[in-house]
């Protein structure tokens, strides 16, 4: 083990102080009983700010308002219904055991801890598995049109290599349907006057008073007006930071700014290097590429992944005979074949492309072939299962996947890291709660398929509304002094003016693309000490150039999409450095973080439990300054860490 402390300092360890001890299946009940309650008459005197309206934010806003709190909610989109949860395709896990196939809360808990490569907190994950069942009930009651069987009961499928069928789905649009359910519940509360909604607003800073989170500074994206809102507590539900790579499956507007501003105000950022690279995305078609599109993982149930045996073989796929094809996943992982977990499938694709055996433009792609499935099941059966995905593929690539194999390549998809939270989902800043993908809590180093929707809704519908009450009951606060608010607003205004006044000769996007390329190369699917050190030289230099040469046209007084992007990219620079420091310090391989120096004799990820069985939570010390590492030790009482094997 070699850790280079010139990149960071070491701080005090931290602990999750809110999770009760005792048997794991009783902890959540105990915590719920221990929370101090807010008197119903007092609830309407308590204001909670929520930033973000995806599955986590939307469900939290609706639920807190139903409980009687006054909610003030923001999103950057023109409507809460457009948050990027809407794009989730596959499904949502729940331990209902409706299939009688041996599923249980304990099994979902076990699978999630193991799938996370033993880098998540047992108490949190168990609670998630318990709540999973209630989520389905809640969504059905709201009218979410899940897939059903002819008897009228809910259908399930197995997903992402799980050995039980516990995934509930609504064709390939599960995220959309769940989000619309939460959105409609939220709009009902808007109508009732319990939620004050501000679409097309972006949070640009966190207001602190007396060591507590007390509000936010937001910019009205239409009028340019910068103003603040204060409250008794603040909730961030602002999603992940995958767009630090420029190309990802995230929406164009997805960004880290809200979380990063909170980090700069004292909230620790945990495990930033844990990113999920999804194996089945449509490859890049040229330099103009603005984002990547995911093709559902379910395609791997019937499609076979292959590349030519010979490097540089540029024959058409149909002209390559069977014995000159390498079905490499089936060859290397005979037990799981094409269904190995996401991190393994992604890395294997990278490896064959690095060997020069990739297909398509630039050699960055592998085939996903349905010829066998079409022969075995018939074209109609394949169309019934995957028709909409095949159409989407054809629309984007102009190629017909019934006639020739799809080309796929891995892309950044989800970030497991995020702001550190305790069992109550409260960050290290009192009064600042973080839910959904924006926090780090439940997926460890790797998230299982169909678990993101589960976590977002668990946090928003069921966890936060209980735990935030405890905070509000115990921490009555007074008004925030006017000078605190004015100072925060002035700081935001100053930064906007600084961005507008540089008037350089490079566009925001050109910087974002360059940063993304550095991150993909050195902090992507495979990381090395040498590469990360290189990245840590390149990023600060590029950041410095950004603040010298960026050109942001227009003014700050109206809708200015270049200005919005510039602020977000500026924060991505600082996050990128922290991700690389985190990746450098974690010399083990685990989950989505593969360090080339840490692999076993077969080239598989080698975890180092003796030295790295902890959450790495980072403290901000200033731009370009060494961050401070705080460790939260992970204890495994119920699931014994083992090496994952899919051979």
């Amino acid at each position, binding site marked *: 083990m070699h850790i280079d402390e010139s990149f960071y300092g070491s701080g005090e360890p931290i602990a999750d102080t809110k999770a009760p001890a005792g048997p794991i299946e009783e902890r959540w009940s105990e915590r719920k009983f221990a929370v101090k309650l807010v008197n119903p008459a007092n609830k309407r005197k308590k204001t909670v700010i929520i930033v973000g309206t995806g599955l986590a934010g939307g469900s939290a806003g609706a639920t807190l308002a139903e409980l009687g709190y006054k909610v003030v909610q923001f999103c950057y989109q023109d409507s809460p219904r457009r948050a990027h949860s809407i794009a989730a395709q596959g499904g949502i896990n729940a331990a209902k055991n409706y299939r009688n196939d041996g599923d249980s809360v304990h099994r979902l808990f076990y699978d999630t801890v193991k799938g996370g490569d033993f880098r998540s907190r047992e108490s949190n994950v168990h609670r998630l598995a318990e709540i999973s069942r209630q989520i389905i009930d809640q969504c059905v009651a709201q009218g979410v049109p899940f897939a059903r069987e002819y008897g009228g009961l809910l259908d399930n499928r197995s997903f992402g290599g799980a050995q039980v069928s516990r995934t509930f789905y609504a064709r390939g649009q599960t995220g959309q349907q769940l989000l619309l359910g939460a959105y409609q519940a939220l709009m009902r509360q808007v109508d009732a006057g319990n939620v004050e*909604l501000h679409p097309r607003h972006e949070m640009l800073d966190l207001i602190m008073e007396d060591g507590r989170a007390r509000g936010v500074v937001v910019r009205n994206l239409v009028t340019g007006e910068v103003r603040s809102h204060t409250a008794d507590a603040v909730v961030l539900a602002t999603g992940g930071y995958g767009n630090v790579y420029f190309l990802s499956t995230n929406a164009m507007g997805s960004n880290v700014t809200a979380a990063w501003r909170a980090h700069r105000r004292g909230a620790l950022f945990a495990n930033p290097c844990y990113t999920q690279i999804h194996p089945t995305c449509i490859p890049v078609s*040229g330099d103009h590429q603005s984002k990547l599109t995911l093709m559902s993982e379910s395609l791997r149930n019937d499609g076979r992944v292959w590349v030519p045996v010979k490097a540089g073989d540029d024959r058409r796929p149909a002209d390559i005979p069977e014995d000159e094809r390498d079905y490499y996943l089936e060859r290397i992982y005979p037990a799981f074949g094409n269904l190995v977990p996401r991190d393994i499938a992604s890395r294997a694709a990278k490896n064959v492309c690095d060997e020069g055996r990739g297909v398509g433009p630039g050699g960055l792609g592998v085939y996903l072939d349905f010829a066998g499935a079409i022969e075995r099941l018939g074209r109609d059966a394949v169309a019934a299962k995957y028709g909409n995905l095949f159409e989407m593929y054809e629309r984007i690539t102009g190629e017909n996947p019934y006639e020739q194999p799809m080309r796929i390549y891995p892309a950044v998809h989800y970030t497991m890291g995020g702001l550190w939270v305790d069992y109550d989902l409260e960050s290290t800043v009192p009064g600042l709660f973080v839910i959904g993908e924006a926090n780090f809590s439940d997926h460890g180093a790797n998230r299982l398929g169909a678990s993101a929707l589960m976590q977002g809704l668990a946090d928003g519908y069921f966890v936060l509304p209980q735990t935030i009450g405890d905070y509000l009951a115990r921490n009555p606060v007074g008004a925030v002094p006017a000078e605190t608010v004015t100072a925060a607003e002035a700081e935001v205004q100053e930064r906007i003016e600084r961005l507008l006044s540089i008037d350089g000769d490079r566009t925001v996007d050109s910087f974002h693309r360059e940063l993304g390329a550095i991150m993909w190369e050195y902090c992507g699917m495979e990381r090395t000490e040498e590469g990360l050190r290189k990245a840590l030289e390149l990023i600060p230099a590029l950041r410095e150039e950004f603040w010298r040469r960026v050109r942001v046209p227009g003014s700050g007084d109206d809708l200015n999409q270049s200005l919005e992007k510039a602020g977000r990219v500026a924060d991505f620079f600082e996050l990128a450095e922290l991700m690389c420091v985190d990746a450098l310090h974690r010399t083990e391989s685990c989950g989505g973080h593969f360090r080339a120096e840490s692999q076993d004799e077969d080239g598989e990820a080698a975890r180092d439990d003796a030295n790295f069985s902890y959450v790495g939570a980072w403290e901000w010390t200033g731009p370009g300054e060494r961050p401070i590492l705080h460790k939260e030790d992970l204890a495994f009482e119920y699931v014994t860490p083992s090496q994952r094997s899919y051979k």
Partner: protein
Amino acid sequence: MKLTLRVWRQKGPEDKGRMVTYEVDDLSPDMSFLEMLDVLNERLALKGEEPIAFDHDCREGICGMCSLVINGTPHGPERATTTCQLHLRKFKDGEVVDIEPWRARPFPVIKDLVVDRSAFDKIIEAGGYISAPTGSAPDAHAVPVPKPDADRAFEAAECIGCGACVAACPNGSAMLFTAAKVTHLGLLPQGQPERDSRVVDMVATHDDLGFGGCTNTGECTVACPKGIPLDTIARLNHDYLKAGGKR
């Protein structure tokens, strides 16, 4: 390839607005339509001109944020496709392409191609939900739903709320949008208790917001990127009459 774009530019809600011509060369047929606008915007920004404002987010055809009228057709020439999923291979080299915002009284232009669609949120607010406060739900299997009903409800629930139906309608009606939600929730057993009040309140709000009446021209369903069927409107009318909405 090369295209001649004629783009609606409008500084703000008070500005009159006008079409501005841009010659854009060095394009690839594999680019998406919005990537073409990205390329143009990069070039404008480097020249110190303000880029063209347009709404977009997921670029996967599901968030409903993108909203361009391309050569007179909402979301452009390809059926069942949002603007963000439209690619330049659907256009001819050298073609002249007109790009305009959604045009309807309840969707005022904010800037260039960006319009305010918050009227849609208000229609949902008026009743486009099932009242089921968190924690109150029975087991998900307590009420079976016949598969054909569930499938039809899903089909209506696919609406992405983009507003193409309104942009396409000669009356500026949002009836397809409203009917999609009324149909989705009205087909499910959970949606029955509020079925009457839902349709009456949503239609009243729709009218108050200044959307036009439906005269069954069917332009909406042709423009709809999700193919929401026209018979959802018939269903809405049925529910509306049954609820005694014609007071």
